[in-house]
């Protein structure tokens, strides 16, 4: 059984894993990072999206062994009160919440690429994440709001 070393949400883990173990199951069943859910089997829903070495990936479509030597950030590893989390909460960009962790991680990835996306760019950028509850309107609003906040200099954030 291969041994892997992964940094997840700031902690290092070393584990023997079956090669066929999916990263999402490693995160959930082995590390207890159950904040990252599983929604489909076909890479469509995006609920399991995490960042690997800073880029979004669908953790159901990555083997745990492929994460060996890499750094994984789940929704649980975001710094407390990340602007994207605040924006999703305050804009009511969620209902049942099952797509939310993946949607947030995909949105953070989107802003890494484009700090000031238009509404259409947000819609297109989140094409890999399905939400069945909200109709997406508030999700788009939340990403716009987080983008505005994240572009604001840190000093302003402190004083405002």
């Amino acid at each position, binding site marked *: 059984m291969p041994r892997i070393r992964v940094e997840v949400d700031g902690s290092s883990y070393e584990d023997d894993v079956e090669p*066929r173990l999916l990263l999402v199951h490693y995160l959930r069943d082995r590390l207890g990072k159950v904040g990252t859910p599983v929604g489909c089997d076909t*890479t469509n829903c995006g609920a399991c999206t995490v960042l690997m070495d800073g880029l979004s*990936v669908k953790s*159901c479509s990555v*083997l745990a062994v492929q994460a060996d030597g890499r750094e994984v950030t789940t929704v649980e590893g975001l710094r407390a009160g990340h602007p994207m989390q605040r924006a999703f909460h305050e804009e009511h960009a969620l209902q049942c919440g099952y797509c939310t962790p993946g949607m947030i991680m995909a949105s953070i990835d989107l802003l890494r690429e484009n700090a000031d996306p238009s509404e259409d760019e947000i819609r297109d950028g989140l094409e890999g994440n399905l939400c069945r509850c909200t109709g997406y309107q508030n999700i788009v609003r939340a990403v716009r709001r987080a983008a505005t906040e994240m572009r604001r200099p840190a000093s302003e954030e402190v004083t405002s």
Partner: protein
Amino acid sequence: MIPASFDYVRPESVDEALEALTDAGEDAKIIAGGQSLMPLLRMRLAMPDTLIDLDRLDSLRDVRDDGDAIVIGALATHHRVLRDPLVRAHAPLLVRATAKVADPAVRHRGTFGGALAHADPASDLPAVAVALDAELLARSARGERRIPAADFFVDWMTSALEPDELLTGIRVPKPGEGWGVHYEKFHRTAQAWAIVGVACAVRRDDGRVGDARVALTNMGPVPVRCRAVEEALAGGAAIRDAAELAAEGTEPPSDLDGSAEYRTHLAAVLTARALAAAAAV
């Protein structure tokens, strides 16, 4: 849904990978980014005995200038392809089409070489390789060979790679000046597979399209080069008339998303759109 169990090999070099491939025999499967393979493994539509993971072969991730062509490492991710200055300068059609592949998370993992080796006719990039007259670089213990894209796609999900061969890179000829490009993709939702896609590059001569390269996604078991369209354009036909010939010689599938007849119609419509968009550049 969980893959069947398999042995896992992660070679550290191309030579090691070739050795692993020879050792594992016919029931081995190569995994690069895994974005096409993982769903198949999970649904057990693929059940290899051995999975050979190319993840550590960083030498295959680069893009280099090779004089009259650029050579894109087989393991260059879609994400990398989209940003690479050489690709952007010399293969803008590939950039256009890659931007339409799946979604950002998939593009972070999925690789150009993987998408070609998978040889899925519904995938966007095989048609691009065919349109661009790319050559695929295959290595084995026996040496390296160049396979023209037109010969690489043999049948549905079947490439010309021998079991002991590894796709190491894709050689894309530099087109020269004056080309406009477009990839037109038609699908039911933003994340769905192409019902039909059209990859095209055109060069304008005296205000009209002269040279053109056109290839179709999902119009048969392999990507289809539209020679009839290209010849019509070279012979002075208008875009609209030339595009009517797009489905010539194709064997479009009928599936849940579209009948063969509908695809035949779409091929002409989308080819006209793609040519017009490319010619406007």
